[in-house]
């Protein structure tokens, strides 16, 4: 009898990670859902009642924590077939005004954390000669938006990581892909950390940033929810061969394409119009 494929998903307390853990649990995967703070696991624990889903602590910022979590998965399941790198958050503020520490912290989770988990899982997948890694990227990995420049840059890096890693691990029958949500109705608001300068209201960009924050906090009702991102992850896992990118939402599909053909001034105009639409829908 073939046992269920084992999936390891990071950052499962809310949003995309939470939905993905449940969906894969319902679809025949043995899921190990990790989160940094076990105190925030109540909701997932309740929703996962009866599913083959285990919650384990993992702080992707810390090497020992990552190693310990992966060792415990191996002890319990003996293998890891799927890794979903979802853990991440978004820094908010002007590029100029982030401190060294704030920049480091953003990269520590979104980039170095993703690499830490991936690099720990790769030897296991190589031994199995089989494995799939899905990185949760973002539309922000293809286009940069004002106010979240630092976050965008971390997602750009994830694009490069995915593309280069695909080449490196292909001979071992390991596949890597990106799922790229655009604007999503997710509790990303709670996953946002504002720069100190902005919080102190001493930013020279204060007014502009307040305006951007307003739009960020009010995604249009038509935007897909985190459950649709989870479905895309599942869809990618079912594909015979994973593509590089799986965009989620109309903006994620079209904006990067439009961007390429547009001169800068026209693009700025479109972005402004899109913001205006957000304002109307949320009014």
């Amino acid at each position, binding site marked *: 009898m073939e046992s269920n494929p084992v999936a390891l998903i990071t950052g499962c307390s809310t949003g995309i990670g939470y939905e993905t853990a449940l969906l894969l649990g319902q679809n025949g995967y043995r899921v190990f859902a990790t989160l940094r703070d076990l105190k925030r696991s109540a909701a997932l624990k309740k929703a996962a009642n009866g599913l083959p889903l285990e919650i384990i602590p993992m702080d992707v910022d810390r*090497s020992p924590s990552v190693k310990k979590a992966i060792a415990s998965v191996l002890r319990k399941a003996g293998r890891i077939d799927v890794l979903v790198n979802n853990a991440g958050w978004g820094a908010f503020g*002007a*590029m*100029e*005004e*982030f401190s*060294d520490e704030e*920049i*480091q912290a953003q*990269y520590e989770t979104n*980039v*170095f954390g993703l*690499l*830490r988990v*991936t*690099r720990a899982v*790769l*030897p296991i997948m*190589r031994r199995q000669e089989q494995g799939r890694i899905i990185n949760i990227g973002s539309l922000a990995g293809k*286009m*940069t*938006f*004002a106010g979240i*420049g*630092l976050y*965008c*840059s*971390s*997602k*750009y*890096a*994830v*694009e*490069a*990581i*995915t*593309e*280069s*890693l*695909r*080449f*490196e*691990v*292909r*001979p*071992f029958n390991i596949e890597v892909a990106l799922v790229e949500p655009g604007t999503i109705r997710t509790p990303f608001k709670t996953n946002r950390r504002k720069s100190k300068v902005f919080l102190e209201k001493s930013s*020279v*960009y204060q007014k502009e940033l307040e305006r951007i924050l307003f739009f960020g906090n009010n995604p249009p009702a038509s935007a897909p929810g985190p459950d649709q991102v989870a479905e895309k992850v599942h869809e990618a896992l079912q594909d015979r061969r994973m*593509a*590089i*990118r799986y965009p989620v939402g109309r903006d994620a599909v079209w904006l990067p394409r439009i961007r*390429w053909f547009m001169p*800068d001034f026209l693009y700025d105009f479109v972005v402004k119009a899109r913001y205006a639409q957000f304002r109307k829908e949320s009014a």
Partner: protein
Amino acid sequence: MNPASVVLVTGANSGFGLATTQALAEKGYRVYATYRSPRKSGHLWQLSKRYRVFPILMDVDKKVSVERAVKQILKKEGRIDVLMNNAGFVMAGCWEDLSEADIEAQFQTNLFGLLRVTRAVMPAMRRQGSGKIINVGSIAGFMATPLLGPYSATKFAVNSVTEALRMEGRPWGVDVTEINPGEVQTNVVQNARMGKKVKSGTSAYTPFTLEMENWQKGRFAKGAPVEVFVKTILKVLEDRPTRRRYLVKMDDRILYTLRWLLPDALWEWGTGLMFPWSRFPL
């Protein structure tokens, strides 16, 4: 741009930095050329005898060093008109073969270092109501190749940082742009660092590493002379406003266009032809 302008070039002791410093000095700019290692600053001191070139010590990895150098320039000149963020290096190795420290070192210089200098200079430029920041990216900023994953990741990120700064800087008259050179004959390959494990023979990726190394060396041996880079930099200095991105030679432009025109799968298949070890089926 007014030739009396004050230019700050980071990592100016070799390669693009040195070539640019020399070219701008010949045009009469006042060039503050930073170096990290005094041992390797000889060329700069020689230039400083003939031109208005001022070598200055700066380690972009260190906050104190960056802030001290920028303060020093501002004290002497009162302004910085152009910043060229050039300091950077290549860390080579497959993702799994590199240590955490290797990867962080790559980001520390190529990305965090660039941001550190930019953040130190930006307030002065805003006060001036004018300024130009030129980030030196790479074609690896839109084309990720194996073995150069960390390098690509930093250059992809620089790409995004440029765009964000461009949006933020525009209302203040600060123009931020990026130049993406492809293979140009500098000693970037000789200066590349490699993870300890990469060539130790204990890695499962060794055959791939060797294949990729040969491929890279071959490409760089056929690279363009550094003059094509300098020519583009001079154009960037004159352009007002600048374009979002500058490429320096025709084959880079072709690559860039293909990158955006081709669907992902076709692009990957095409680039994969260059790396037989991991060739993708179409």
